């Protein structure tokens, strides 16, 4: 059972990371195309920068960053200070880790819930980005994909640290 859950969380985190990476690569390409277009303006051959590239960058980048969160959580990439690790007993360390993972799952859940409400606000206001006129709620929706993944993976991480705690106590 645990293996299945672990595999699921890993797949979610991995897939979202790659999707975010793909968004990053697309943005890189579009930006370069836009720069070349802008450089070609004086040539007057009908080329120009991509209209609203800055808006697209903002929307795409937000989606990518949200999509990266589950991967950072799954691989325990968070910055932390190991200065006093030697002083903390293994069981206590695992217990704290469990608490921190629970806290992270709560943060992920609250953040995602508020993001969802924020999206509804933007939908009802009909707000759009300045130049490309992308409805802002669509950016939020794209972000929600990663955010929901973050909640799921964070919940798995609670389970994972609970299991580690049990194993540490048994040892």
């Amino acid at each position, binding site marked *: 059972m645990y293996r299945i859950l672990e595999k699921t969380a890993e797949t979610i985190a991995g897939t979202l990371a790659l999707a975010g990476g793909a968004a990053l690569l697309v943005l890189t390409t579009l930006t370069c195309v836009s720069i070349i277009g802008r450089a070609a303006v004086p040539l007057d051959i009908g080329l120009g920068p991509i209209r609203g590239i800055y808006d697209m960058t903002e929307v795409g980048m937000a989606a990518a*960053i949200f999509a990266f969160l589950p*991967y950072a959580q799954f691989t325990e*990439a968070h910055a*932390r200070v190991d200065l006093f690790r030697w002083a*903390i007993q293994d069981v206590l360390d695992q217990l704290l880790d469990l608490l921190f993972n629970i806290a992270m799952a709560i943060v992920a859940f609250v953040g995602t819930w508020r993001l969802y409400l924020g999206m509804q606000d933007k939908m009802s206001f009909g707000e759009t980005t300045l130049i490309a006129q992308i409805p802002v709620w669509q950016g939020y929706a794209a972000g929600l994909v990663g955010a929901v993944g973050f909640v799921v993976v964070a919940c798995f991480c609670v389970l994972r640290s609970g299991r580690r705690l049990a194993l540490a106590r048994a040892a």
Partner: protein
Amino acid sequence: MSNFELALWSFPVLLVLIFLRMPIALAMIGVGVGGTYLVIGTPMMTLNQLKTLTYGTFSNYSFSIIPLFLLMGQFATISGMSTSLFKAAESFLGHRKGGVAMSAVGACAGFGAICGSSLATAATMGQVALPELKRYGYPDSLSTGALAAGGTLGILIPPSVILVVYAILAEQNIAKLFVAALIPGLLAALGYMLAISLWMRLSPNAAQVSPRVPWPERLRTLSTIWPVLLIFVAVVGGIYGGLFTPTEAAAVGAAGTFLTALFSGAMSLAKLTEAIQKTAGSTGMIFLIILGAGIYNNFLSLTQLPQATSLWVGEQGFSPWLVLTVVLLMYLLFGCVMDSLSMVLLTVPIIFPVMVALDFGMSPDDFGLWFGILVLIVVEVGLITPPVGLNLFIINSMAKETPIAATYRGALPFVLTDLIRVALLAAFPAITLWLVWVIDAF
């Protein structure tokens, strides 16, 4: 408890949580949210802010430079440029006493020009240079120390992720900061080489030199590193010349390093996936910290602590130089235990207003650049000092037989040159600002 006391108490609470190994981002979010609740008495304000704060932070155009620079660094790692840079540096320096180690430092400097991260630079150059240093019989502690120190050049030499964050927080011009970082970065490389040279002369050892390389061959190896030069000039020059926004420049850099990796034949689907995964991990980590620092700093401004501190320091009539010394020492101290990015995010919003109000006899613009470079250097020293020096750990894990104590010892001479450099740059701001002035005059 007054709001002000609450803000003061939040520091030790934050530190205790962090020392208990709570992820730094989570600790900042927790203390920030908790503190705001205690000040206002209702969670509604934070909850309402969160509707737009997360998306607003992640979609901030200025911040979008960070994932792109991280991606650029990952592609640079694949590109094979690390080997070319090392070979080129070795053809010039290898025949000198300690030359192979100096070459490693020189190659780190070159790699730093296309990579904005210390850890990636240390890891990449370590892979290339450690086996060579071993082959030439260098003492293990010197090898690991030199490479860990050389890794910090990834951040010290622009582009640099920390400088980007500082520029955004302190509202400074990113392009000018990059230019200002250049001479101090080169001085760093020079200082490390000097340290190696002195070490080799003072303590006799069995290290060999590589044969002297004739000039035509030197020029040939130099010609293999043109992509590094081209990308560096395009990125830094492009921002400075107003050709691109910093984010666009980072995209150009990422595309440039990608193409370099592609044409060198080193790029594969597996490598691309790995690069994306590493970028994903660091980006997720960094943006969670940015979010946490934002929430925590919102709480602090709610309590008026930053304003009160700035006012208080101004009223005491301390000498500006004394305050600067204390601040830099504090960064050094915390840098030994804390992650440099978290430290910058956490402290710059409080410390920068205090510092900019003091009179150092220069324009606010010049001050912003100079102070940024000083902060950059002192927080990076933390990467090569015990007990928590990430570069030391990375290099040490690659040199399996070298005990960590030897690596700590090996890093010491380099830390010493760092301290001397900070003192020099602090005493003579013109070293940092000169290049900016010259280019601005055009």
